[in-house]
């Protein structure tokens, strides 16, 4: 079967269209920021529209990379401009394109200072993030992975809150430090195997000693990005100080890159080291789930609370990814071992939607009251009923209520943990209680009860723009929650392939 000719160009268009639009907005300058805003909306919507043929043209029976485009890039390093998506990256690509639209709309009237630069930064950012998920060459992956830091650094630093400089420097240096060691590991594998292709790295035979070092280098890069306890401390700062759009992109997509990295690099490239060190990841994940859950409970700042909740939820992702070894050890079969990874992937998509939506909700309140302190609110339902409905829905989704996307991922991961060990599952399930506690308590204090202050009494309900944004996200959350089958179907072959790679050993290979 010959794929239509446009298929080769689809991913490139997805990546470069937003970047090009962003540059164009920059060139138009601040004087034409209104035009730039429309261009940004047009660019992000077109990008989203382009994911439709991607989603429907994707062959769900195959684990191979599809929509491949391969061009020589740096012949000296055998590095290719090589793009492709499989079942693991496709949902993340769609999520990225989907989440950028609300970010653009949410900033529509709120951003007045240097608006053109704001929209340009987000569009360029979108293209770079899509590049990370589409890259099939490790050097290209790293290129996008690092380039992404530049717009995010500026977004937090320019449009952020009072402590924005501290937060953005911390964010940049943390991630930069982690990534540099990943680069060193990639170079090592290039020197050894003579290729930067990710597939070649996955197939490269490595001794246990080498795998351990590579695993640790990857862990530094991805754990910071996820973020895992104890390298999570940049996230609450960055989230709190970032403008709403920045928080949404950070939570919805950038954190997913860490999880994606584990699935794309750590497990297949260093399977023996992963098997050996899986307990480390599982313990760190459980600490994130339980301890960070408690930390979230005592937060006074809404954004900080959601940030800690993100860390706890991302703990599920790493838990789901690495529990596969325990399952195999415990049950002795590979049957159903992929369930944890399925859960991890669904959890990533779902968390992207829910945390993004929650940050948008906080943004709605912040635009009106210029406060993120929980204590300043109370009884919002009386003045903003439509908003309250959305906030309650997303809050419930965050606690993992059946029928919402939050349920599917957490449920799969907990079931998988049960197969591995009762205690893992018990600890992981604690988060359901904790998550319910901190989220519902947040909703209770902000939304319900009598009106506590004249400022709350003066609040105006959602306008059409905000309603549209939150409505679209609510629809997505419910869709994934009620009917996750299409998503799981896309994941299926690639996850299966990943499980075989992860439980295979590289030690016996010639």
């Amino acid at each position, binding site marked *: 079967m010959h794929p239509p000719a446009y298929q080769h160009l689809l991913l490139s268009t997805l990546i470069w269209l937003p970047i090009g639009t962003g540059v164009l907005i920059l060139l138009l*300058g601040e004087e034409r920021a209104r035009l730039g805003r429309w261009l940004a909306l047009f660019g992000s919507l077109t990008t989203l529209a382009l994911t439709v043929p991607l989603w429907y043209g994707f062959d769900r029976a195959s684990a191979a990379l599809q929509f491949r485009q391969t061009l*020589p*890039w*740096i*012949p*000296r*390093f055998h590095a290719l401009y090589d793009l492709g998506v499989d079942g693991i990256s496709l949902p993340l690509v769609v999520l990225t394109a989907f989440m950028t639209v609300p970010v653009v709309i949410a900033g529509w009237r709120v951003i007045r200072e240097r608006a053109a630069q704001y929209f340009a930064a987000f569009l360029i950012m979108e293209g770079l993030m899509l590049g990370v998920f589409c890259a099939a060459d490790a050097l290209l992956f*790293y*290129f*996008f992975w*690092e*380039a992404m*830091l*530049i717009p995010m*650094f*500026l977004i937090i*630093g*320019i449009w952020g809150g009072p402590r*924005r*400089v501290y937060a*953005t*420097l911390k964010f*940049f*240096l943390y991630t*930069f*430090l982690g990534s*540099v*060691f990943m*680069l*060193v590991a990639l*170079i*090592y594998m*290039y*020197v050894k195997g003579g290729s930067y292709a990710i597939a070649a790295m996955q197939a490269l035979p490595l001794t246990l000693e080498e795998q351990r070092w590579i695993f640790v280098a990857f862990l530094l890069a991805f754990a910071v990005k996820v973020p895992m306890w104890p390298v999570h401390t940049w996230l609450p700062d960055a989230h709190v100080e970032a403008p709403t759009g920045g928080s949404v992109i950070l939570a919805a997509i950038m954190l997913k890159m860490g999880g994606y990295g584990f699935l794309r690099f750590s497990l297949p490239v260093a399977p023996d080291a992963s098997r050996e060190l899986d307990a480390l990841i599982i313990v760190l994940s459980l600490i994130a789930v339980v301890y960070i859950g408690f930390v979230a409970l005592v937060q006074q700042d809404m954004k900080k609370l959601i940030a800690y909740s993100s860390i706890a939820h991302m703990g599920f992702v790493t838990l789901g990814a690495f529990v596969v070894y325990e399952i195999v050890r415990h049950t002795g079969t590979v049957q159903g071992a992929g369930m944890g990874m399925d859960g991890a992937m669904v959890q990533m998509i779902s968390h992207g939607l829910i945390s993004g939506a929650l940050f948008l909700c906080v943004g709605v309140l912040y635009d009106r009251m210029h406060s993120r302190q929980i204590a300043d609110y109370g009884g919002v339902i009386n003045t903003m009923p439509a908003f309250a409905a959305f906030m309650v829905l997303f809050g419930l989704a965050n606690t993992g209520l059946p029928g919402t996307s939050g349920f599917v991922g957490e449920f799969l991961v907990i079931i998988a943990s049960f197969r591995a060990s009762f205690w893992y599952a018990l600890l992981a399930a604690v988060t359901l209680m904790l998550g319910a506690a901190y989220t519902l308590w947040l909703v209770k204090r902000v939304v319900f009860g009598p009106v506590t202050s004249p400022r709350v009494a003066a609040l105006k309900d959602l306008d059409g723009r905000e309603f549209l944004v939150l409505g679209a996200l609510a629809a997505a959350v419910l869709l994934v929650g009620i009917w996750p089958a299409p998503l799981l179907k896309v994941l299926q072959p690639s996850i299966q392939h990943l499980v075989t790679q992860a439980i295979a050993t590289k030690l016996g290979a010639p």
Partner: protein
Amino acid sequence: MNPAADFGGLVLATPEIALAVGICALLLLDVFLGRRALTATLTLAVLALCAALTVSYAHVTTRRLLFDGLYVADELGYLLKLAGFLVLALGLLYSRAYLEQRRILRGEYYVLALTALLGIFVLISANSLLTVYLGVELLALSVYALVAFDRDSGVAAESAMKYFVLGAIASGALLYGMSLIYGLTGTLDLGEISTRLNSPSPLGVIVGLVFVVVAVGFKLGAVPFHMWLPDVYEGAPTSVTLFIGTVPKLAYFALALRLLAQGLGGTELEWSQMLVPLAVLTLIIGNVVALVQSNLKRMLAYSTIANVGFILLGFIAGTPDGYAAALYYTLVYVLVALGSFGVILLSSRRGFEADLLDDYRGLAQRDPLLALCMLLLMFSTAGVPPLVGFWAKLRIFQVLWESGHLWLVIIAAAMSVVGAYYYLRIIKLMYFDEPPAAAPTAARGGGARLALGLNALAVLALGVAPAPLLNLCARVLQ
């Protein structure tokens, strides 16, 4: 072995010859006509002519020796010379308004810059210890004079004096090392020396080598021979700092390559051992001390030192690939340094040097173009893709891995994270801080600004498509 200096051979040296003739003509014209603007224009004309001549040798791929083996014409030389022309021409373009405002726009400035360039060329094409020394001195003497060019400035005079005294010691060390090597091998010809030396070397050669390495370290600004560099960078007029920070680095790269890698190639084991502690110290001191600077010129001086550490790492790898990586790093560094000092020059006004970090507060709002250029340049030096500085660092890491220097890779990687902090600090000042009330607004100067924009764009373009320059660097060092 020694082809006669035939007419055909002489043709290969026309860039130098044209430059020398041009210098003499400019000197005379300046004296008799005394029109500075004309001198500036003519200087650019001379540079353009020489650049055109150099380009016309792009087809010369075979290495040829001229003038009884004193001079070598090869692809590497033409590449470095072409880079030298372009960088000097751009640098003079950036400096024009600066010199005018400070009333030091004189014909001699251009003449001295051109003689320094001639010294650089002699050094680049040197194939004999004598020619090497001739080039080093011609370059150094011209630069001493340039540093003191603003004769009313006490700081400039002081740093010129410091530079001169320390530079003289380094020249002495170089000469002494050369004399030992000459005494033990009986030849000045670099090619001959390499055939007569083989590891393990006699003690005398090692002693000579130590002196040569010290001199190279001094010229490049490697720790612990870096003391002159921050003071000279800070004290000299910014246009001269731009010059010192860019074109001579090409020459000193050539010095290190021709002397150590080619002439003393037989003693590679010894000199690379000497370079390891130098490189490590250079990386650490350069990056750490830069963190606490409040003067941008001084900070860029320490950043230069840190970058020199990376260049030395390329030499430590000791393979043609390693030298190619060092060459690539040098070219990239020069391109970025040219732009960075260009930003300082274009931000300055009469009575406002723009050399303090605080002078850059809120630049993004006062002058978005300049701020964007600086943003790209700083992210490039920090080694963040998609900018070209990333590939330069990547290349160095690769060759070090290939030659098995694991610990150096890790130190260099860690230090590049430390380095990122102070580059980010500049971006923070420009983008995140509010401009002070009395800050000057965007300046005029269309041509220089356009050139600076292209300079920054080149940093981005070479970062997105790094293959051509990487290939070129590898080819000329095969």
